[in-house]
């Protein structure tokens, strides 16, 4: 029997005030997975973005989880950047970002990782909730599509689900990708910067799990979308005037 090559994957989870669900989300994540040609070892890194609850303590309480803490709350973009830097500096082959509220299924994460291993020319693989027949509510679909079009108009890059948090990054992406946004605009800016850096981007259909918790916690639909829109416009202006 041929020996499978070992792959180290860093699962980056930015978290802000997620103490009530985080431990369960972390326990459901895979530790080891056998792909056709690879043996995949996972390490989970939680970046607590200055939470006022026990998010950090909950993360530390789960065996095998690396917990990082931001002293002050900077936003999802900043927390993701910290986690990706950890993955880069610790020599991981791949990194995957996931939401802390359990919105992403472990099977979808594995699906994305298997695809990037099967297609090594890809650098950034984005899980798209709009490419599946999933259970995304209609108003969320409209909001996400709208933001994807805005991303295209402002930044010149189109993907169907520009706000998806489930993404896989190749080693090349970890080394070459950088972005400035500290807030939610990072989702769109990252795609833009990836294109600028000459990275190859693709999308993969995923399901979105909407629990009562994630529905309550999630961005207020219209105001959330408007906030991201404003952040994207600011980002674009800053790129011109700075």
């Amino acid at each position, binding site marked *: 029997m041929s020996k499978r090559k070992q792959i180290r994957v860093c699962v980056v989870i930015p978290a802000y005030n997620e103490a009530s669900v985080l431990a369960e989300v972390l326990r459901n994540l895979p530790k080891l997975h056998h792909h056709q040609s690879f043996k995949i070892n996972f390490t989970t890194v939680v970046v607590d973005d200055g939470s006022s609850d026990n998010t950090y303590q909950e993360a530390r309480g789960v065996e095998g989880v690396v917990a990082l*803490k*931001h002293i002050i709350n*900077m936003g999802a973009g*900043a927390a993701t*950047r910290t986690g990706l*830097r950890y993955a880069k500096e610790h020599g991981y082959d791949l990194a995957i970002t996931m939401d802390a509220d359990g919105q992403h299924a472990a099977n979808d994460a594995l699906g994305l990782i298997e695809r990037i291993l099967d297609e090594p020319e890809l650098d950034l693989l984005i899980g798209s909730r709009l490419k599946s027949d999933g259970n995304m509510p209609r108003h969320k679909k409209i909001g996400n599509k709208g933001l994807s079009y805005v991303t295209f108009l402002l930044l010149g890059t189109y993907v169907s689900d520009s706000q998806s948090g489930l993404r896989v990054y190749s080693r090349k992406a970890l080394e070459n990708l950088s972005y400035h946004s500290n807030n939610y605009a990072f989702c769109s800016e990252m795609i833009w910067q990836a294109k600028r850096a000459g990275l190859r981007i693709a999308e993969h259909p995923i399901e979105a799990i909407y629990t009562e918790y994630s529905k309550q916690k999630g961005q207020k639909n219209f105001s959330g979308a408007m906030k991201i829109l404003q952040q994207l416009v600011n980002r674009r202006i800053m790129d011109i*005037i700075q």
Partner: protein
Amino acid sequence: MNKYLLLIILNVPFIVYGLIKATIYYKEGVYSVLQLVTRVTFWILALVGVLFTQQLYNFLIGHDLTNSSPLSIADVLLATFSFLSLTMIIRLYARMEKAEKKVADLNEELALRYAED
């Protein structure tokens, strides 16, 4: 003193300063080519606007496109301060962005170092 000449004297130094600064930043590698082109275009348009205000006004009056009164000293001062305010707002915004980036970098560095201890 000719008010149009006063407008030029008060505003051209800002424009020249903007052009020189953009060139220096480009040479130092702070600005990309796109950023340099954006700034140079902006300042050249401003320069053309300031240098040819009288001709522009005469053209508009001559073609019945405006009925506003000729340039006054108050207009000159208003235009100059608007220009100055715009420049200051942009610089302030850029500095705020830089300060925010430094805080984010510090936060990131501390999180990573703290994890290693």
